[in-house]
């Protein structure tokens, strides 16, 4: 899609408003769920799922990632790969402790 096309931008602004509504609803949902006294594991799973949906909506529509150039996807694939490794760093620590014992 050509961003310079005025008609296309008008169509996009409608999508922005819809995404805005979805983000508002999901925020209320995630707060409501937190008062339900779910088990910790389930609460974490639900909260992260909702946050991931919200984050994806922001990235896809507001940051235009749904329609971007290859160079940006390449940067992001690399970023995600390193990010995943980073998230598993805490488990390396547990592994060391087990060896020490």
């Amino acid at each position: 899609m050509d961003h310079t096309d005025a008609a296309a931008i008008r169509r996009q602004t409608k999508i922005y408003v819809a995404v805005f509504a979805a983000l508002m609803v999901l925020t209320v949902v995630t707060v409501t769920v937190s008062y339900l006294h779910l088990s910790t594991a389930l609460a974490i799973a639900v909260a992260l799922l909702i946050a991931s949906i919200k984050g994806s909506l922001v990235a896809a529509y507001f940051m235009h990632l749904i329609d971007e150039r290859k160079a940006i996807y390449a940067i992001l694939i690399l970023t995600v790969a390193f990010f995943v490794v980073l998230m598993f760093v805490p488990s390396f620590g547990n592994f060391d402790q087990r060896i020490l014992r």
Partner: protein
Amino acid sequence: MEIPYTVEPRPDTGLFNAKLGIWLFLASEVMLFGALFSSYILLRTGAPAWPHGRDEGLNVPLATLNTLILISSSVTMVMAWASVKLGDLKKFRLYMGLTFLCGLGFMVIKGIEYAHKFETHHYPSTNTFLAIYFTLTGLHGLHVLGGMIVNGYFWGPGAKLYGRDPERFANRIEVAGLYWHFVDLVWIFLFPTLYLL
């Protein structure tokens, strides 16, 4: 000397240079916040017990309001960009002004939260939860402040560029927007992590 590829895309990347630049910067930001999220996981899984945000005096309704404010600011930011693209500088000023005010509102509420914590003697040194809470929200707050400075500049003196080169100005707003949406995205994860879990 003319700065190359501020409007026309570079043939090999297909992007104007600033857009590639901001995405590389955001990639480094992912690693910065990622490292702190990872630290949070390590601290939480390594602790014998982890307090709920509410038990440490975190104000969930106020933080929910802040989340809604920051999401709204993301929408006004993208509308500001769309307004420039449609050649409507008046609407751009309106939406950019709203974006700035939302940022200011977020910081004021954050300030109220911090002040309340200090009044009740909740400091970063109080416990591990508050240490990571202040580190994460503090760093995020600095990012909001940085974005407000950039947005404020483009609302005011920076908007002069629109008269000379509207396409280049639109690209600057897009780049500022990408940063601002990223700051919003970080908060979308920080909010449930610190306040709700």
